[in-house]
């Protein structure tokens, strides 16, 4: 680990002002950043501790849910308003990591965790995300866990967050602050495809911070479910996961929102599946036909072709769960 200076500002403005300097990094829960520091994947000269910045509120009303970026994963998951109005958010959080990590990890930090790609995490290998232009060993190497959607010739690493999959399905918006700027960005526009710049992962500019996440209230959000399939039952990242929100009135699907995790270079919205459900009767044949569209645009590497089958089947299972 390279040495750094730790500053502990008491206000958001002070934190944002400190972040103007080059080589500065925010630290929230630290559960991912500490790993990256220990493995010399990140080597900031200064860490800005957000612990004392007041960003941890959880507020819900009839219109929307607003989660402060420093709200802990476990506190959000346990919140009665979250569980009632946006159950999928609690489900994705409780399917993430371990209880200890959830007590530490924050909403903002979870959305900004780096990929679990083994090549990215090991400085002994080339990686275009870590060292732009050095190459991507995953494309012809060990790629069982890699993305089948959104990859490029430069990177096929998946996005690791479960929460981001739920927020993508539910049309969440991120509130971003910089020292001189304030923006609201829909989460579907927040993550960038790797293209030929896989090291630029989001639309955040240097010194920007996620301050809050808002999620609209809806029938879809109230009837939302998360299905996560993984190599072991708990404390593991997704091979394939599906977030689904369904609004069904009198047996007809009024609206459907779906997103997939573990398969894309960013949380992956499934618009073709949604379109195939809208206005249709909620029966098994419709669900099956729609599920087959989950893999539109998918491209498998040597070892991860199984994710295509798994993605279609997981989509069907998640739709059946939401219909039950």
């Amino acid at each position, binding site marked *: 680990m390279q040495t750094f200076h*730790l500053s502990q500002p008491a206000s958001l403005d002070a934190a944002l002002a400190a972040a103007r300097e080059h080589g500065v990094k925010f630290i929230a829960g*630290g559960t991912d950043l500490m790993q990256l520091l220990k493995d010399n994947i990140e080597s900031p000269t200064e860490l800005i501790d957000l612990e004392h910045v007041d960003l941890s509120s959880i507020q819900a009303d009839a219109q929307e849910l607003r989660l402060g970026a420093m709200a802990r994963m476990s506190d959000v998951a346990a919140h009665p308003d979250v569980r009632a109005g946006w159950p999928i958010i609690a489900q994705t959080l409780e399917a993430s990591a371990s209880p200890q990590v959830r007590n530490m990890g924050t909403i903002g930090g979870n959305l900004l965790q780096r990929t679990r790609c083994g090549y990215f995490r090991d400085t002994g290998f080339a990686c275009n995300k870590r060292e732009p232009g050095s190459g991507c060993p995953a494309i012809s190497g060990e790629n069982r866990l890699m993305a089948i959607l959104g990859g490029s010739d430069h990177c096929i690493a998946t996005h690791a967050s479960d929460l981001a999959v739920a927020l993508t399905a539910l049309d969440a918006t991120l509130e971003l602050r910089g020292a001189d700027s304030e923006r609201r960005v829909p989460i579907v526009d927040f993550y960038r495809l790797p293209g030929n710049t896989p090291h630029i992962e989001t639309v955040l500019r240097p010194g920007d911070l996620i301050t809050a996440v808002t999620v609209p209230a809806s029938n879809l959000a109230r009837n939302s479910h998360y299905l996560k399939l993984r190599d072991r039952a708990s404390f593991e990242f997704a091979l394939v996961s599906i977030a689904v929100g369904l609004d069904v009135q009198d047996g007809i699907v009024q609206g459907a929102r779906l997103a997939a995790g573990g398969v894309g270079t960013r949380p992956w919205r499934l618009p073709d599946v949604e379109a195939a459900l809208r206005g249709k009767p909620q029966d098994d044949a419709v669900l099956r036909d729609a599920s087959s569209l989950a893999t539109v645009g998918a491209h498998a590497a040597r070892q991860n072709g199984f994710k295509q089958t798994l993605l279609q089947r997981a989509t069907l299972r998640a739709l059946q769960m939401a219909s039950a």
Partner: protein
Amino acid sequence: MPSVTRRVTRRGLLGATVSGLAMGSVAARSDDTAQVGLPPPPPAAATATDIVLQINGNHVPLSVDPRTSLLDALREQVGLTGTKKGCDRGSCGACTVHLDGRRVLSCLTLAARAQGKVITTIEGLAIGDALHPVQAAFLHHDGYQCGYCTPGQIMSAAALIKEGHTRSDAEIREWMSGNICRCGAYPNIVAAIRDAVQEG
């Protein structure tokens, strides 16, 4: 100088052995560098920070490098070696402690960020000679084999019971999934927790 009879402990013996090995490797390296004519690289500069941690009811002043994890501070500086270092990457749970009553991983916590929080380690769980109900239940059910993961398991289990995630064995297993036991003592760990819930 008075003569002192030193008690040989497993830790002392291991420490002596390790430092002996380290000296051997340093000697070998200095021979190598002499041949190629290069001095060994200097250690990275680090600025120490003075902090005070509140550990098991005691205020402990420390001078730490900003990089120091709470785990390393507890073990190497405070001498509380009950908290174990397994993976040092947040994957095994051996380093679990309580911060303000919540279970967290001390390997992923910077010591300097633990200032102002109430830190409880395995050494602070018992009250005097009275074991915490989870400690007693682990003894009764033989909830360990080698024992290395045990402090983390017990700290996690004590928190789990307070959280109330004990309505079934399946729920206990799910909410203990952050603590890995490579001996595979899981059935007895679950039995101990179930018992401790009833005792509590």
